[in-house]
């Protein structure tokens, strides 16, 4: 991730897509590369067909990257929603502390 006191330049694919600073991008690409290697190698070992193994490798890269990407982004989205709820909760607690609307006051029962 980014360092303290300076931003890493990031690696841009096709000049636009910043892999290092985009959440889940780096992991997805790495998983995709691994999946591609495994799929292509296994196919080659099984069939000894070079060109078709390359095709299988590319298909493996696509599927593994997409699958890893969607899974990671879905979890990331859930985390962001939870983070926002926590932030709102902390802000509400600070604002409403000691008033009738204090959420912690309700939990402790009526006075």
């Amino acid at each position, binding site marked *: 991730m980014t360092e303290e006191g300076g931003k890493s330049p990031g690696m841009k694919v096709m*000049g636009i897509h910043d892999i290092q600073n*985009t959440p889940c991008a780096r992991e997805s690409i790495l998983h995709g590369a691994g999946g591609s290697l495994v799929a292509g190698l296994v196919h080659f070992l099984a069939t000894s067909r070079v*060109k078709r193994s390359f095709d299988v490798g590319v298909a493996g890269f696509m599927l593994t*990257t997409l699958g890893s*990407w969607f899974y990671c*982004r879905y979890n*990331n989205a859930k985390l962001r929603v939870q983070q926002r709820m926590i932030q709102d909760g902390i802000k509400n607690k600070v604002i409403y502390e000691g008033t009738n609307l204090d959420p912690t006051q309700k939990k402790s029962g009526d006075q």
Partner: protein
Amino acid sequence: MAHPTQLGFQDAASPVMEELLHFHDHALMIVFLISTLVLYIIIAMVSTKLTNKYILDSQEIEIVWTILPAVILVLIALPSLRILYLMDEINDPHLTIKAMGHQWYWSYEYTDYEDLGFDSYMVPTQDLAPGQFRLLETDHRMVVPMESPIRILVSAEDVLHSWAVPSLGMKMDAVPGRLNQTAFIASRPGLFYGQCSEICGANHSFMPIVVEAVPLEHFENWSSLMLEDA
């Protein structure tokens, strides 16, 4: 604000823009994968020695390249629609500001409590102080309290204009005789720059927008000062 040679979006300053950035990353990753696949297919087609002039049909590949694009489109459409509806959610704004487009400046009216209005002209290049941004600075900024929902009513007094602030994820056309509404929450304090986004004459490029998000106390002090000066 944008920096030289920038290709991507500016850093998000509102929750809606954060969501748009995430969606853009999602869509761009899919585009990147499809481009890689197409490039690979082109190279494979060009370099193959296999040719068959008598292929009539192939059910399997037809099914794959019908279903797969449909699935990909659905996976793009679902988050897109979610953000679309998120942008139109009914919220309870704490403040309403009217932004009126003129040739060639913006005017802002804060009329919720008192009658506060002012014009916002671009600072000419020869009058810029060191460190200020050319063609982006204005003499009066639109000051808003941070972390509060703000409603902006956009219209124009003469010709079409468009009120746009990219880091807030906002763009709304200013149409004479029509009142357009948009809303935002500035999640962090700072200066957010934008420019008129609808051709409106000779100085269309020289009527920028500057939104200054500050803590509520500072906003109250600023509005008191502006009312005293008026």
